[in-house]
């Protein structure tokens, strides 16, 4: 199992932050997922070994956190917030617009593997609603037209 040097440096540093190894688990899973796309059996085994945990312990943590996934996703995870503040300003319409445009339902991935669509809970962009996150990037004060332009950009980047 090979992670990037950046991952290894951060992982080693994090281990010095806590009295127990296990404390690095949650952030490490997310950083690992950023590199591998999803938490494969191999990643689970690797982190369990490194942190002296059972695979079951690691899996029980993975299943708790909404950002962690054991299934492959598209290159860009389009997360549309439909919680109250976004809903009042057109979040649901954005989600439907995305679904129609990408021709996938929430949790689906486009056949070219570029986009996954997800309906998410509050992402902390309430005063700039409606908002989405594509992977970790926020896009705020959106309209369907602005969203189209954003998706076009990602599509271009994703096919390069």
């Amino acid at each position: 199992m090979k992670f990037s040097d950046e991952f290894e440096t951060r992982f080693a540093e994090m281990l010095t932050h806590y009295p127990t190894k296990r404390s690095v688990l949650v952030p490490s899973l997310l950083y690992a997922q950023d590199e591998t796309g999803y938490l494969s059996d191999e990643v689970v085994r690797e982190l369990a070994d490194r942190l002296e945990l059972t695979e079951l312990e690691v899996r029980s943590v993975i299943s708790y956190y909404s950002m962690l996934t054991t299934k492959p996703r598209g290159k860009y995870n389009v997360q549309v917030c439909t919680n109250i503040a976004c809903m009042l300003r057109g979040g649901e319409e954005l989600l439907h617009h995305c679904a129609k445009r990408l021709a996938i339902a929430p949790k689906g991935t486009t056949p070219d593997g570029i986009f996954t669509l997800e309906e998410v809970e509050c992402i902390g962009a309430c005063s700039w609603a409606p908002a989405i996150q594509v992977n970790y990037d926020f896009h705020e004060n959106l309209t369907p037209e602005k969203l189209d332009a954003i998706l076009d950009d990602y599509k271009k980047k994703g096919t390069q």
Partner: protein
Amino acid sequence: MADLVSHPDEVRVVSKRFGLGATNIDRYVELDGYKALRKALSMKPDDIINEVKASGLRGRGGAGFSTGMKWSFVPKQSAKPKYVLCNGDESEPGTCKDRLIFEQDPHSVIEGAMIAAIAVGSHACYIYIRGEYRYLSVIMQKAIKDAYARGFAGKNIFGSGYDIDVYWHGGAGAYEVGEESALMESLEGKRGIPRIKPPFPAVVGLWGGPTVINNAETLASVPPIMLGGAEWYAGLGTPKNGGTRLFCLAGNLQRPGVYELPMGYNLQKMIYDVGGGIPNGRALKAVVPGGSSTPVLLPEEIDVAMDFDSVAKTGSMLGSGGVVVLDDTNCIVKFALRTIKFYQHESCGWCIPCREGTDWLKKTLTRLHAGGGMMKDIDNIQYLSENMLGRTFCPLGDAAAMPTIAFVKKFRKEFEDHLEGRPCPFEKEGAVEQMPVLAH
């Protein structure tokens, strides 16, 4: 980068460095940064605690507990190390203020956490930032590194002989982890399931050591108190509600945004003056005053001072500072359903009243909104909610039940209008098309 706004009524204490490039440590120092920490090092710990107590600073996460009091509960002597834990797992719907603090002024949180550490005799601070806020974690990691490089953090800070380590920590998506005991579980690398209290974290917290847990805005409020004094800070607000607050104005408003206003600022003025009122000539229907868990207020109830005690008198809560405004085109049943859908999704499943209650409420509200409801469903919603109150380890059960009870109580007629197969009176025709069905 989130958009910054301003209004003449703002009193900038926590947000005074917003937009001034204070992520840069030199700039932060130029703008009075790390002066308060230096001052705290020359003070007796009890004097720091008394100063914070006298300032009237109360928890900005939403519970509104006296910060100085919380610090005073940490035992002086402890066999196990003591910790300071900053709660930056901001995720109460309607709330987006800690995000701005981390983005614009990360050192203020570090400085506040270190002052808390001196006050309680701790040598380690953890700053927990929710996983979705990855760009803020990057900002925070750099800020911590810069503070170490200057000798402001780490060993022998400012030559005082006092050591304080500061660490960042990242979540991975979980509202529940914003509850303090679940936050500690998460930091220990586990599922974010709440712990039973007592013992309280101040006595038995992280890895069994006494732990102070404060919201990011609370900690960012501490350095200004150290420099300006308790009396000045207390005087900005109302009795027993010192200082200012970042209010996140959201929903159907002309000028939504995060504004720093004195505690006790009038809600009506906040909506119509600061927020610019309701757009498109619509009328105000309802206000959720402090994040999705706080009971809704009617237009006739908004002439209220936004401090913890005044809002409590209306039967609601000041909560997290997230003010969500609804105009009269919105359906309350749908709003209640979306609110409960959130809590159902976020319930960790540990306590049965919360796990089962939120699920039943979601199912009942879904059916009711779709026109398939019966009169007794409305009473059932009340009954279920009331039976969740106070029957769970953590406040998530209450957070789901309280707003639901208020929606039904204050808008019962609207719930009844959905009965007997009638379509939702607010459904905008053709606005939302049917979602494609996912092929499994």
